[in-house]
């Protein structure tokens, strides 16, 4: 169970724009174990999607480029592979599902054809064998009347069903890693739960490791075991979901957790501050123009001289939780005051 499927080491992806050099992913490292669900959270523009696309080597060049680090899938470094070899891996050993199922599916191809394509491509199945397996996959993801659905076009399915079809397509070849980029953001709340359930079920059955990219901490709490919090292209906190949520070490993480509206707030000694919704003041900085020192400092209530001068190291603050903050220990103290 602790077998590592994916090891990312100091990944760096940049974009060359008129505004200058944008370091979208600036030295991100993590590992993924078999069957584990890792969540990557952060606001829009923090680099989580770019990280995912970098793992799949789907970054358009120009204007982007992976300029450093390694991504090891069972030993082989994906960054160094040539395109032909990488294509054999995409959809086969690493797969990805996207946010918008309507626009992410080809409108003029039947669902069955699109899913079979992956099977024919990677497992050299015949058309018929691929279609059979496709229908079985559609059944597994919970689509009723799969034989009929396979002959239909994307616009004939509902949003939830399309997303299920996307999942079926991604898992058809039984990949070791599934990257889910905001899989439920475009769906209704009730459908969201269903889709998450489908992913969880498949994870149990096939033993796929899942990287879940989202900005929704509620989903993280429900489905993930470990979480990485990203800000401005770097990791700011990492640890098990239980521990990070209970005792967040980084002020940004605390801010994210505090900005979740909760029905029936748990009152902490009749503390006013824990009842009011707290927002994080300020905005994410332009990635082409990052401040020196800690990138979160301009928005941080705990920021001091050293924060503005030097980048804090990413180290273990409490057992099992890593963070990059000069004042990690003080976070809890201030909130409980």
């Amino acid at each position, binding site marked *: 169970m602790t077998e590592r499927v994916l090891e990312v080491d100091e990944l760096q992806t940049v974009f060359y724009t008129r505004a200058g050099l944008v370091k979208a992913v600036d030295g991100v490292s993590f590992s993924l174990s078999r069957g584990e669900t890792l969540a990557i959270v952060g606001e829009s523009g923090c680099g989580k999607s770019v990280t995912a696309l970098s793992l*799949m080597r*789907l970054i358009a060049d120009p204007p982007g480029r992976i300029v450093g680090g390694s991504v090891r899938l069972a030993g082989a470094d994906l960054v160094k592979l040539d395109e032909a070899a990488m*294509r*054999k*891996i*995409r*959809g*086969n050993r690493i*797969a*990805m599902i*996207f946010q*918008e199922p309507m*626009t*992410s*599916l*080809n*409108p*003029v*191809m039947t669902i069955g054809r699109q899913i079979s*394509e*992956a099977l024919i*491509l*990677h497992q050299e199945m015949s058309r018929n064998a691929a279609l059979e397996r496709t229908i079985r996959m559609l059944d597994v993801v919970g689509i009723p009347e799969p034989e009929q659905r396979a002959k*239909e*076009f994307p*616009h*004939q399915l509902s949003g939830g069903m399309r997303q299920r079809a*996307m999942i079926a*397509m991604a898992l058809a070849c039984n990949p070791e890693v599934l990257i889910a980029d905001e899989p439920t953001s475009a769906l209704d709340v009730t459908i969201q739960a269903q889709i998450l359930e489908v992913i969880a079920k498949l994870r149990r059955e096939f033993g796929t490791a899942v990287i879940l990219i989202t900005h929704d901490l509620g989903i993280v709490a429900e489905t993930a075991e470990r979480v990485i919090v990203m800000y401005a292209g770097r990791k700011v906190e990492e640890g098990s979901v239980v521990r990070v949520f209970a005792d967040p070490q980084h002020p940004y993480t605390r801010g994210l957790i505090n900005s979740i509206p909760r029905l029936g707030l748990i009152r902490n000694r009749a503390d006013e501050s824990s009842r009011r919704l707290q927002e994080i003041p300020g905005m994410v900085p332009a990635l082409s123009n990052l401040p020196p020192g800690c990138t979160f400092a301009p928005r941080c209530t705990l920021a001091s001289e050293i924060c503005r001068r030097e980048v804090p190291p990413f180290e273990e603050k409490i057992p099992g939780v890593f963070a990059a903050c000069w004042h990690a220990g003080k976070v809890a103290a201030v909130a409980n005051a």
Partner: protein
Amino acid sequence: MGTYLVRRSLLMVLTLFGISVLIFVMLRLVPGNITDIIFDSAGFVNERQKKKIERELGLDQPIITQYGRWIAGLAKGDLGYAYVSEKPAIDEILPRIPVTAKLAALALFFSILFGVPLGVISAVRQDTTLDYVLRIISLSGLSLPSFWLGLLILMAFVHWTGWIPIYQSSPGNLWKEIALLSIPAAAVGFRSSALVMRLTRSSMLEVLRQDYIRTARAKGASDTSVNYDHALRNAVLPVVTIIGIEAAFLIGGLIVTETVFNIPGVARFLVEAIRWRDYPIVQNLVMFIAVVVVVVNFLVDMTYAVLDPRIRYEG
């Protein structure tokens, strides 16, 4: 699909009516009529003669009546009489149609044959040297007046072979006819190819930007598969519409090219009729052109509806 068909048909009929009114009005913008011109060139005005001719031609009736008679005639297939030759208009127009039709078909064929593949290649290899070269060629195709291209081709022919390809009447042998017509068809077709190429290119580029192309790549599909299986299938749909736009484009080219190459077709006849102020002919010919354009667009829309699963299977 059924309601779509009915709706489009009704729209088509409505549009045709509107066009007939427009044509009728356009030709009568300036006060005075054919009789003034006849007498202008004669040098004097004989009022009685003028009134007599006016009555014969039905020009003394109120405008609405004149329009009504024209439309009624159209429905019956009676296009009135040509001023100049005094033969029934339909006898002048009908025999000239086949040549123009063949020329148009050839030009259309050339434009698709060259335009679509080159447009796809240009899009797939965006911003490479090949793309730039193709874009420049297509832009120059759109910039050259087609009559000038015709003249240049004639010049080249005369220079290299010493004779001018003359098409007086159908040479009987189909292949010979196609060969002879290919030359003016190339002149007309060059501009059309350029248009088709540009539109195919932008349609293809638009498709390549879509999310489902990213999904296809994420599945590990090769570039060829992405471009042809996934992208082209979607890009072709707008290209079908392009053919409808091209029909209108083509007609303008036919008019001047038939004039340059002296081809006895319907398009050249329009110009002649205008010069001779033969208004019944002009009216009917322009109406004919409009009908062709509208019908072609209608057929194109129907084809599109059949090809696009989003319309064929309405949810």
